């Protein structure tokens, strides 16, 4: 079983995930239910433990089926756990009543992937951003407008009054994402879940957005949980990164460590697969065979073993635990070593 991380220093953890599991029941037709008998589950998240320090930008990376989005949603209580605990600022989310959780939302905000879809098309930008204030700081109602103007300026939407009355379809994609960032930050949260926040922005705009996010993190003392499939982008904003494969953590370390000294065979393959914007540095490595298995029936033992170039017979039997092989560098592989 994966063990909970043991860190030497007493760190201030804003978010702790303890053996978190999330299984989704598979929809079956009536006939299938009668004949199949047992229920099938999509094991989206299968026993993941993580601690995120206050003030860091933690990246959760993985391909499709890795469970990264689900972990994000579980972390801020948008999804219910099948098993395990999520502790935010020392509070176990499961212990909260619905109303208390709703009030706690002020402290944990989300930046979604698709800015066009995450903004109410019938609400002005100013109004959308102000909602957070209306809900969590109703007593300051006469200052709301000024607060919105202030955050608009911070994210670079100036003149603020111009953008206040615009609708989402009247501005560009990059500007929309800024609005989404403004909306997330206006309630002064502690934790921001950023779900592929720049994936839909143009390449030339991404750098600006990432820069903005880093600057705001420092200014507001935020913690980011950054979910992405784009490791190249994650490098520019994350301090630490966790690589997920099929619902389990494969490797967790600082960005430098993971990118320059990867140990898990999957991490190595993943990094090798990512194209480098330099034609003189084209990939020479061979890609692992096969494709990501179905999360309903993951392979026994280590989930990566059918595709792993260094798999041993016992990899098909025992699930490797996430072990700290070097200070701050965790790997879930018995035979991992630096190449």
């Amino acid at each position, binding site marked *: 079983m994966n063990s909970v991380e043991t860190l030497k220093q007493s760190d201030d953890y804003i978010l702790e995930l303890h053996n978190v599991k999330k299984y989704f029941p598979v929809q079956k037709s009536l006939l299938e239910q009668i004949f199949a008998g047992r229920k099938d589950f999509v094991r989206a998240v299968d026993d993941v433990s993580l601690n995120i320090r206050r003030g860091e930008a933690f990246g959760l990376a993985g391909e499709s089926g890795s469970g990264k989005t689900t972990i994000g949603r579980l972390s801020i209580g948008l999804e219910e756990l099948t098993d395990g605990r999520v502790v935010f600022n020392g509070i176990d989310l499961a212990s909260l009543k619905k109303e208390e959780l709703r009030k706690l939302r002020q402290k944990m905000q989300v930046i979604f992937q698709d800015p066009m879809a995450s903004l109410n098309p019938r609400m002005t930008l100013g109004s959308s951003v102000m909602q957070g204030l209306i809900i969590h700081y109703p007593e300051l109602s006469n200052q709301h407008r000024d607060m919105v103007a202030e955050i608009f300026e911070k994210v670079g939407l100036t003149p603020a009054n111009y953008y206040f009355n615009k609708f989402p379809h009247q501005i560009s994609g990059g500007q929309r994402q800024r609005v989404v960032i403004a909306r997330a930050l206006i309630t002064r949260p502690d934790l921001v879940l950023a779900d592929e926040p720049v994936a839909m922005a143009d390449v030339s705009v991404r*750098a600006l957005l990432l820069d903005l996010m880093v600057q705001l993190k420092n200014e507001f003392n935020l913690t980011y949980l950054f979910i992405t499939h784009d490791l190249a982008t994650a490098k520019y904003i994350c301090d630490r990164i966790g690589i997920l494969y099929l619902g389990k953590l494969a490797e967790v370390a600082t960005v430098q460590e993971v*990118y320059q000294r990867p140990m898990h065979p999957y991490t190595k393959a993943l990094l090798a697969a*990512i194209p480098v*914007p*330099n*034609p003189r540095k*084209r990939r020479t490595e061979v*890609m692992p065979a096969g494709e990501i298995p179905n999360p309903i029936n993951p392979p026994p033992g280590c989930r990566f073993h059918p595709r792993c170039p260094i798999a041993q017979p016992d990899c098909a039997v025992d699930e490797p635990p996430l072990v700290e092989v070097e200070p701050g560098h965790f790997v879930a592989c018995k035979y991992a070593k630096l190449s």
Partner: protein
Amino acid sequence: MDKKILMKIKDLSVTYQTRLGPVSAVDHVSFDIYKGEILGLVGESGCGKSTLGKALLRMIDPPGEISSGEIIFKGEDIMKYDYNKLRNFRGKRASMIFQDPMTSLNPVQRMDEHLIEAIGVHEPGVKRESALKRSKKMIKRLGIGADRLHSYPHQLSGGMRQRVMTGIGLILNANLIIADEATTSLDVIVEAKLMDQLREIREEFGISLLMITHNIALVAEMADRIAVMYAGHMVEIGDIYKIFEHPKHPYTQGLLASVPNIQFDANEELYKMPGEPPNLTHPPKGCRFHPRCPHAMPICSTREPSLLEIEKGWLVNCWLYQKHQD
């Protein structure tokens, strides 16, 4: 050693009629596609690259239309093709792979049927057994197990579906495959494997591949030449090594400098290009990039430059490299 030209595009323009007026999504673009090359066409949203790709197969529907230009393929201008010749051209000479394989494949048709049907459409004389044999061979060539031959699209993964799409184009011995964001919806390892496949196929069959994508790193990985588009114009096109090492157009310079690199290089800062791509209903006067250009000159805001060859095989569309009055 002059490479042979497969397709010559001259002065191509595509215009859309919108509520806010006519929009020139592609504005007087000229370039060549060589035989057997991989040409990467890059640009950001709204630059017109996807529209250009569709225009090459004359697949522009109203409210858009190809408002000017010639597309010369094997000596013939396909703009002048009638319906039958066009049908013959599409699929047999040039085919397209789209972003979402799920919607481009018929969900109620098995994979082998897809391939057999493609043959049936373009080579009507071919018998079914022969078509089936060819399909089996192609699927094996694409690295899909023979047991998946009878699968429906939803039973295959995204990567496999894209390979089948490629197969449909290849089975008819097309000369040109246009891949429009073909790997955007795929995981990176799957994408890498598909790219390996395409490279092998290019070696074996000698086809040309036009890769339309916003993923610049992918183009660096795959292409022989790169073409950069901005706001409907072709701004730079040439050899991939030369352009990556010494990009000439300011947009290309900015664009390449803003691409994240997974490797740790000396320079760790991403270039932040100011401004945003223009609204094509009101494009800037003169050079469309001038509001965001760090090297803008007075002439840039009054007259449009043209795409000129400044070195052999290297074309740039910028006043910095052309004679101008002031």
